[in-house]
């Protein structure tokens, strides 16, 4: 490695001078080895990715989403779009609070390398998103021509079965104590067969060294007798017709010092035959075993592709730093591990197995007293630079080896920088050394694995920047939230609010209106029970006055539960009103069909409060 270039960054971030190593399929294997050592030496790993699109309008996670609906939205996002580049930056913090970072940017393209229709048949692209990437100089040709492909863990096993290279798992097979007569006969037959075969092998072994003619003869004999060779060692193939037979043969040979049984996989993940290889000695057998293991690993790499990087991060169990933890994690889970589970709880526990600790920078940002979301990392960094004095020294040792002009995947590097800056502002020492091992600081533990961009345990501070009626941190049960649509196009929240206030005395109490998109709004009743009254009034026949006018003009209302059902079922129309309407329609349809919704647990998440602060 070239002499390390030391770049210190105080109050200004000259990120344009940072360089990130770009990895394509050409330099993937070399970079992987490098990355492996960097990951094991690092304290944290920052990740960031760029996709072919982002959720828009109400499809993105909003403050009033419950963890459940937020997860459904993220699921949809993860399933639709494709990752085009994945930036990984392992970094460590030195004693003097210096940052040592090793940024990498992997270009990905889901090329169907195995011709099995994997990893993805098709993906969505958002034109505006691609156009903005093009403006930043993203090289789509490099990505599509040279991007690294991958298979998720689930896809890998499917692919192996379909290609017939899967090794049937033998661990699950317990030796079954009751052996039948048929088993005994089978074992004896195989035993004698192996014995004979060994004998002939030994005979040929002793005779081959004599002369060239003999060699030729033995060669001919091999051809005629059908003797096989495996890696220049004699071998015998025994066809098997059941798992039981495989097990019996393996048990029989378990003590043998020079015979190595190998399973020949057949189609559909079952064993087709057993290949018995005769090694020269115990050492030779070990050598062969190691050789095969390496081969298998190499073979696996062909399947997993970029997923190897995810596996490395996962295996290191280092804390992962991201700036949109929910979206990033659902994406990683669905692209590189397996399809996303139906329920958010399953996802959270599954994610914990992959990345035990994920830190979301958004939550850390909130802690320093700004309601600002880290939607844009450069903005967040410049905000911190302007408001706080917290010098961070960043060292990127591999700068010299990186080509000029390639600056994609900077976000992971920015995340490292932001993280250090936040830690130093909050006076948190990022990692605590404890009996030689580094641990995450207890202050940071609070911020790990929060899979909701808005809800966190930390208290929202007062912020005067936000509009008049939202400058409190009041939370409301979603029971008290009502969706309203069908009002005149172009109406603002305050117009709607005054309209509602004048319409009925339910609105004499405290309530708020917030537009979700141009066609739909939520009404928040601060007094419990009123929402129910409102819904009742709207559907009752005694409706009168201005409210009647509004309903006549097409105003519709529904409870929060409809919204939840809609997210679960996946009705993602462009307009929220349209989706809600369709959800109501189909539930109406079900009631008509006689299938009463008794099987469905209706949860009124009373305990599940939502945050109105960001509305």
């Amino acid at each position, binding site marked *: 490695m070239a002499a390390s270039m030391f770049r210190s960054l105080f109050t200004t971030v000259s990120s344009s001078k940072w360089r990130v190593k770009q990895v394509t399929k050409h330099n993937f294997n070399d970079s992987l080895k490098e990355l492996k050592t960097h990951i094991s030496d690092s304290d944290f790993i920052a990740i960031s990715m760029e996709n072919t699109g982002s959720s828009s309008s109400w499809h993105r996670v909003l403050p009033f989403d419950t963890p459940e609906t937020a997860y459904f939205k993220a699921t949809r996002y993860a399933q639709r779009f494709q990752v085009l580049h994945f930036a990984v930056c392992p970094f460590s913090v030195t004693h003097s609070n210096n940052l040592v970072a090793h940024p990498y940017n992997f270009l990905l393209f889901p090329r169907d390398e195995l011709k099995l229709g994997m990893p993805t048949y098709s993906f969505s*692209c958002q034109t505006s998103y691609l*156009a903005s990437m093009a403006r930043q100089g993203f090289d789509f040709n490099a990505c599509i021509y040279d991007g690294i492909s991958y298979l998720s863990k689930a896809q890998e096993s499917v692919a192996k079965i379909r290609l017939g290279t899967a090794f049937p798992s033998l661990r699950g097979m317990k030796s079954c104590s009751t052996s039948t007569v048929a088993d005994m006969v089978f074992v004896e037959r195989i035993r004698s067969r192996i014995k004979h075969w060994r004998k002939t092998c030994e005979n040929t072994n002793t005779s081959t060294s004599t002369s060239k003619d003999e060699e030729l003869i033995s060669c001919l004999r091999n051809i005629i007798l059908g003797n096989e060779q495996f890696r220049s060692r004699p071998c015998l193939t025994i066809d098997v017709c059941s798992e039981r037979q495989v097990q019996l043969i393996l048990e029989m040979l378990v003590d043998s010092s020079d015979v190595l049984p190998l399973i020949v996989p057949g189609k559909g993940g079952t064993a087709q035959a057993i290949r018995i290889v005769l090694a020269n000695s115990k050492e030779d057998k070990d050598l062969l075993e190691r050789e095969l293991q390496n081969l298998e690993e190499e073979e696996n790499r062909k399947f997993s592709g970029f997923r190897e990087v995810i596996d490395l991060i996962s295996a290191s169990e280092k804390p992962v730093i991201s700036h949109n933890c929910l979206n990033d994690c659902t994406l990683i889970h669905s692209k590189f591990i397996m399809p996303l589970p139906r329920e958010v709880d399953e996802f959270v526990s599954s994610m914990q197995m992959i990345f035990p600790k994920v830190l979301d920078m958004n939550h850390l940002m909130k802690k320093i007293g700004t309601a600002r979301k880290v939607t844009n990392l450069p903005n967040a960094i410049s905000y911190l630079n302007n408001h706080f004095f917290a010098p961070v020294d960043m060292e990127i040792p591999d700068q010299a080896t990186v080509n000029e002009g390639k600056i994609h995947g900077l976000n992971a590097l920015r995340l490292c920088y932001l993280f250090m800056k936040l830690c130093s502002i909050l006076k948190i020492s990022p990692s605590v050394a404890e009996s030689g091992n580094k641990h995450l600081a207890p202050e940071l533990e609070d911020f790990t694995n929060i899979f909701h961009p808005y809800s966190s345990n930390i208290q929202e501070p007062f912020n005067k920047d936000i509009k008049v009626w939202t400058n409190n941190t009041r939370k409301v049960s979603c029971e008290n939230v009502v969706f309203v649509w069908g009002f005149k196009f172009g109406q603002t929240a305050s117009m709607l609010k005054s309209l509602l206030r004048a319409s009925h005395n339910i609105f004499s109490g405290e309530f708020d209106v917030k537009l979700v998109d141009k066609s739909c709004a939520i009404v928040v009743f601060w007094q419990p029970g009123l929402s129910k009254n409102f819904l009742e009034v709207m559907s009752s026949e005694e409706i009168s006055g201005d409210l009647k006018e509004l309903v006549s003009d097409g105003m519709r209302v529904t409870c929060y539960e409809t919204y939840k059902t809609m997210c679960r079922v996946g009705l993602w129309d462009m307009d929220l009103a349209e989706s809600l309407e369709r959800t109501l329609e189909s539930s109406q349809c079900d009631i008509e069909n006689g299938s009463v919704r008794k*099987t469905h647990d209706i949860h009124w998440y009373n305990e599940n409060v939502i945050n109105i602060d960001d509305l």
Partner: protein
Amino acid sequence: MKTQKLPILALSRALSRALSRALSSSTSAAASESGPAFPVKTVTTANFEATLSELRHHVRASDFVAIDLEMTGVTSAPWRESLEFDRSDVRYLKVRDSAQKFAVVQFGVCPFRWDPSNRSFIAYPYNFYIFPRQDHMGLGPSYEFLCQTTSIDFLAKYQFDFNACIHEEVLKAYDLKLVTIVSSSEGLGLVYCLRKSILTHRIGIWLKQERDAMTSLNSTYDSQWSDVCKLKDARDIPLVSTADILFTERMKNRFSEWRDGLLREQNQEDQSQGISKDSKQQLQVFFFKMHPALRLNGFTSHQLKLIQLVIRKHFKDLSYVCVNSEASDLQQIVVYTDSKDEQNLLLKEVKEENCKAAEMKIQAAVGFRHVIDLLSAEQKLIVGHNCFLDIAHVYSKFIGPLPVTPEEFVTSVNNYFPHIVDTKILFNTNLILQERMKRSRKSLASAFSLFCPQIAAGSQSTDLGSPCHVKVDVEVDDSRSSSWNPGVKHEAGYDAFMTGCIFAQLCNDLGVDFKLHESSQQLALNEKLRKYVNHLYLSWLHGDIIDLSSGVKVGDSSPSQSLKRRYPKIVFENIAIVWGFPSTLKASELRECISKVFGSTSVVSVYHLDTTAAFVQFSKTEQVSDFLLLKETLERSDGPIAVLHPLAKLLEGGNTCAADYDTYKEICSSPLSESLFADQAKAFGIKWKTKLVEYEIAPVYEEHENPSSQSDLNTAVRYAEKAKPNIIDQLRNEPPRRQVSSGIADSYAAEANL
């Protein structure tokens, strides 16, 4: 264009021609002499305006126009691929799905004109890079399109330039929301045409659309101008925070410094600037329409409002204007004017110019649709190669939402493009041409090298002289050439050129005399061509041909015959679709377990849709309903019969669903595209039965299936009864052969009713 890297072989022309005849065009490229690259005009935003008028001229003068499209994908899910078991209406639904989901990235247009003086054709190949673009400023949803991984990889194989495609320079096709586009900060694109309104009259709608955009544009500008001139907004800002007060004070000082500097300059000819260096970045000095001005950079909208306030309050001779220049974004500037009159004059001028610039932008935004408009207006004969999907794309992107039935689509297309001819129809339905094609593959490139070997080889000099070969010259930017290196395959411009050449040659072979024809309309009505014009392959696998002018399906004379031999006759009435069974179940096992119940001859064929879905064709129509009924009763009974029943194997896992063929069609019509058909059906079912999901959570999964399969069954029975009240009974008594044929007749009758 990629130059050939292979060594140039010193082969005689004759040999090279012979080679090219034998090999596909890509290999023949290696054998040809190195010449200039194939000339094709690449069109981007930069040269679009100029190209358009040139193209209009060429199209007007042309005899026919060949087109070709490159898309980001063809099928959105494996089961959406074209299958043998697709009835023509299902096939159309699949094409429709494809055209709705994928984007067009390249559009090749190539007008051909017969040149009587040279006795040759002149081709004008154009290659438009287009890209859908919609800038959403919070209002509309952003436009999304699908990419099929294999298609993208395929394009990459032919060196498609994705950067060029997505790059700013490229023509952006149109997608409404002009208002947003105009108000968006980063310029705008050409957008695909309006999609949602029902088109009664295209010109009317187009004009209306443009007018609407203009109206809303004007209103935006009016309000903006009222903001700017009267400063209503600015008045509303109370200077509450100290930061605001300080900022206002600072700006006031800076502006007065600058203004004083200007005045000093006028008096003393002093070159010194009034602005201190550090503020230069934010306040850039320049001249705006002969007036000294400051360009405001890097202020937030709140700050800009404060600046407006300052200008209005304290500076009578400065004015704050917002300029929407043609080339760039909205610009905020402060201009110095000597007098009040001058100021008013300037403001008026700016307003007019802003409107004009916006108008220009809207004109440009309509963009690529002008080309389609042009092709439609000129009513020329449009030539494509297997172009049903291409036409569907053109329709959905530039004309309107695709209709639900093929008949509606076809009549609508006929209104826009009265004459379309498909080269694939020509050489597959004409017996003589078919004979020539027999041994060749049916791809465009191989047809090209077969029919036009001399053009494919790139050199068609006079020594060829054969009267049976049509001569084609290429003219780009007024320079004509007759020899070139073969172009890049699957580049829309070159593909369109190839298609046109094949058509010209085929016309020649059919004995169409171009010398006698004066307009394209006449060419389309030519006695020898007439029976091919407006016939398109709806399904290539089936050889279903649809007549665009009448909407009637034309029986095919000779489609892929090998297919017909391989598969038994398909009778859609007799087909049941089964999905959700274990993926390990093979077709043979499926056949076996159904045969056990209904008799060994009951199952005609089993065709896998994907791993967990299959079509089962029964020998008798009523077996479909019998099968569905039996399945339903089996699932309802929980006893040992259900376990021991031969069908138990099929029902294993409890997720197996079955329905008649029409359910398949319904599922195909859904806009969703799950990769497995079973998932698709589930997602589709959820649409009108929300309970499905809720039931699924509950442990009683199997129970919920009953109503659905029951209703499927009911619909099946109802359908059968409705469509053919007597046929079921008739069929029962008739010999099997007769049944099959009546079944077909019926399925077509049913189709026609749809």
